[in-house]
């Protein structure tokens, strides 16, 4: 019980740090914000901050992890989506993620630039990032398995979830540069790509 409470308290501190960091990122930008400023805002010592997050990149990773967890919770409680077809389910998942990220667009842009550096922890191909995304990828894998069981698509194996991860990244790229009102270009792109992909999967357009 005691250790459970300790985990809870740790989680609370982590969230408080993230909240402080996000406010500063929004005000000053990702690069200009120092760890010192973050610890001051979160009312903790800089040393304590390092116990939780070694770098700002770790903070960003934690942020993404939290958002992805939020998407998973949202999906699990959405009853209407359970009856939707695969294309709509996947659409709703990415669209909901973008919805959550909307207030932090500038921060995401900075993280994205940083992620392009080969040595960055934020790179989607880094071990750290992949490790943290495992839960999310398993969640996607479950959805794909369900569609496989319904006969909506043929068996795609783990590759399906991995491909989805890359696709999500591509959509995020489009979303970041999308200047259309309400980012509706991204909505159209998302809709069309998913419709095409599920169509090809269903009809065996490609050999897997």
């Amino acid at each position, binding site marked *: 019980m005691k250790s459970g409470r300790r985990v809870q308290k740790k989680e609370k501190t982590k969230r408080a740090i993230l909240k402080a960091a996000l406010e500063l990122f929004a005000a000053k930008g990702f690069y200009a914000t120092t760890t010192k400023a973050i610890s001051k805002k979160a009312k903790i010592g800089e040393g304590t901050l390092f116990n939780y997050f070694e770098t700002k990149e770790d903070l960003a990773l934690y942020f993404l992890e939290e958002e992805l967890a939020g998407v998973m919770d949202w999906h699990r409680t959405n009853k209407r989506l359970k009856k939707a077809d695969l294309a709509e389910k996947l659409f709703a998942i990415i669209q909901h993620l973008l919805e959550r990220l909307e207030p932090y667009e500038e921060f995401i842009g900075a993280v994205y630039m940083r992620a392009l550096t080969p040595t960055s922890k934020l790179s989607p191909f880094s071990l750290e990032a992949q490790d943290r995304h495992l839960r999310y990828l398993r969640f996607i894998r479950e959805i794909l398995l369900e569609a496989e069981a319904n006969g909506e698509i043929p068996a795609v194996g783990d590759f399906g979830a991995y491909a989805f991860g890359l696709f999500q990244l591509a959509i995020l790229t489009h979303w970041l540069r999308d200047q259309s009102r309400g980012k509706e270009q991204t909505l159209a792109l998302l809709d*069309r790509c998913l419709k095409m992909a599920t169509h090809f999967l269903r009809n065996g357009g490609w050999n897997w």
Partner: protein
Amino acid sequence: MKASQKNGALARGFRIGKLGFGLVGSYLGYQAQNLVLSESGRTERRARFHKKAAQQVSGELGALKGSMMKLGQLLSMQSGVLPEEALRELAALQMHAPGMHASLARAQFKASMGKFPEDVFREFDPEPFAAASLGQVHRAVTRKGENVAVKIQYPAIRSAIENDFKMVRSATFAPQLTGHLPTAAIDEVQRGIMEETDYVNEAKNLKFFREQLADIEWVTVPRVYEEFSSDRTLTMQFVEGRTLGRFLETKPSQKVRDLIGARLVELFEIQTTYLKAFHADPQPGNYLFQPDGGIGMIDFGCVKRLSVDWREFRRLHDEWGWRESEAAERRFLKIICGPNVPYEKARKVLPDLEAWWELKHPRGSGDYFYGQKIEPLLKKKIDAAKARAARTIFQNKLIEPEYTFLSRADMGLCFLLEQLGAVVNISEITRRVDAGPKTFKAIDS
């Protein structure tokens, strides 16, 4: 779907894709994708059906086509400049967008209105109940409990159409330079399509017609809810009634059919005579019919302004007024052919028109009735004469755009009356409208 068919659709997709603007930048790209996506060629079959229907119409009334078809004709004269598909799609009178599932419709509502439908309405049906120009219509209930219809446009589709026009412009640079394809013609068609698909413009039209037709108790023009509308979302009062096909399934009596037929004609006459603007989309889906003969007018995307004096046109046309003097003949031809066609050339059409009308409604034969039984031999003769007149007009390019739209609306009205099986005394209605209370205001006054 046969393999060859599928390849055909794919190949077409890629061909159009080459001209396109990336994945979301082209309306034609959407059409190509729809072909690929079609389950067992359903969409393709539908496309073939549309084409066949279009051919029937154009065969019958060759000259009397919409301005978009006119662009198609202009461009096809430059054969080889553009793929056939691009022309056909852009020239199509009705624009179709891919369907939206509930999640996309919800997200697009937010993209255009800044809030999700559930944050704005008490209830919102995620399933659409009708298709609309480039979008779909959902039922909803406002916080105050009012039933509304919410029309949502597919995301980014108007900019996709604009891109296609850029493509048309760049691909037809040479013929534009030489003047074979007037740039103004492309401008006009583009302006028309963009206007028809702009929901702000449609809301304006709705308001105008609602105000003007408010005193006629048997017609309903829905109220616009501006607070829930933008250029891509249009929220209107929900209008009760059935579309033509569904209405006919209820087997309405001949009396009700005749009543509705007469009212449709009256509405057309009021619009052309007094409002100087008319609902120019002949689609039967734009009307809703109620059991007591009430009519709901929906979808005001395509409204055209009228510059001719309709009473004068009626007199010249229906009462053979153009035969009275050369001046009358000149005025009449100006209305049909426009001011730019020389009198000598325009005159060519008169013998054919006269022969047609003489068969259809001989001089001195009293009131003109629509829908009366005609013996088959006479009907054949009338149709042949009509086709001859249309050919003459078409071959000599004797047609004014405004008259084209009038003909299109008239054609739509005739189609509705025919489907209804209504018998209508047209002359009686025109007399009544002419004499009736003139409380209407013209659109630009």
